[in-house]
């Protein structure tokens, strides 16, 4: 399907697709580091399946991006052939895998924010995105259920699990909102009806949706986002390490296919 978009809308849409694809890609790769070493066997299967879902979502989003920009790059070029500074994922996902509590908190914060973002895109004026999001939400629903169960389990446990969860929240809290921090092209997205609501409004909805749960679990409220204008740039050493890992096969044999 060829959709005629004015350049400003096209650029804004490309940036949104890149942000979403990189989010799913980096989280998927990061969580896949647990394959084989997760705390229990069932969770090894679950986190590997979650990671596989995210990489699939990233691939589908990179394909939409490749079709939109139509400059000869394919999904794999976007996924693997950029330097670390070229990635546009939220700073929340720059945090390393860490311990199990860290992984659960990072995923909980991401999945709940992503759910709000996806909900706002279901009726997107850009049909290919609306269609993909409709399908992705059916899978992400399971992710939110699963990670919320873990989040509550750690928060309601006595002693070490709760202490580790609190430490992870303290570490990542200031970066939690970066998934929904405004994009520089925000206005063009809104005007073209790509998203049902602007990102600051989505961030408000997301924070409101968490407040009851945080109260019930006696957890401190999330702090405001630190440096929101750098929410998706200036990546961490932990990400540079991960980038080196996930591009290693590609660099070993550029252009190889399965």
């Amino acid at each position: 399907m060829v959709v005629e978009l004015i350049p400003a809308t096209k650029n804004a849409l490309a940036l949104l697709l890149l942000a979403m694809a990189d989010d799913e890609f980096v989280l998927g790769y990061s969580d896949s580091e647990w394959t084989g070493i997760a705390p229990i066997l069932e969770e090894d299967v679950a986190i590997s399946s979650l990671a596989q879902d995210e990489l699939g979502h990233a691939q589908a989003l990179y394909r939409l991006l490749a079709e939109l920009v139509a400059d000869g790059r394919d999904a794999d070029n976007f996924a693997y052939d950029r330097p670390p500074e070229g990635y546009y994922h939220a700073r929340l996902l720059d945090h390393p895998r860490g311990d199990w509590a860290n992984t659960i908190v990072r995923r909980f914060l991401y999945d709940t924010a992503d759910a709000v973002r996806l909900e706002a895109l279901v009726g997107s004026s850009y049909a290919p995105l609306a269609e993909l999001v409709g399908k992705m939400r059916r899978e992400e629903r399971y992710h939110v259920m699963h990670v919320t169960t873990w989040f509550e389990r750690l928060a309601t446990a006595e002693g070490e699990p709760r202490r580790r969860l609190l430490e992870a929240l303290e570490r990542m809290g200031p970066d939690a909102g970066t998934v929904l921090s405004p994009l520089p092209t925000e206005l063009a997205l809104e005007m073209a009806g790509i998203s049902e609501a602007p990102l600051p409004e989505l961030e408000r909805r997301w924070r409101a949706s968490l407040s009851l749960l945080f109260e019930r679990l006696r957890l401190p409220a999330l702090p405001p986002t630190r440096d929101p204008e750098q929410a998706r740039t200036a990546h961490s050493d932990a990400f540079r390490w991960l980038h080196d890992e996930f591009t290693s096969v590609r660099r070993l044999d550029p252009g190889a296919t399965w």
Partner: protein
Amino acid sequence: MIDAGTVDEAAVRLALAEVADPEIPVVSVTDLGMIERVEVRPEEIRVELLPTFVGCPAVDMIKAAVAERLSAFGRPVFVDTTFRVPWTSERITASGRAKLRASGFAPPTADSAVRCPYCGSGNVALDNLFGPTQCRSLRYCRACRQPFEQFKTV
């Protein structure tokens, strides 16, 4: 040999019913409700598939298997996928559900309606929402003490 002159949608759909799912080979792509559209033209055959999951790694294998099976009709075959219509587990046919049960898979249902495919008991537990592939969950039957898999409800 197939007479190329009598190729019609029904013949193509019949052939598609022979293409097995690579991950659960007891069911075909037709049983799973993955076929959204079949177009038979004098110069080509076009098939539109619905992936069960966005990142299903079997999609390319399924596309190749469909193209291979339909190549018998002697005209170019084009197989595409789309998300325009989301695949949902409701698309699995009644015979597909029966075949799943017969091979130890519970078909997708509401949580309260899950039955053990071995003994039929409803006294089952959810072991893991996630299973060996993206589309499967792990369950356990407390009545016959048999672990089994369920096709995820999406």
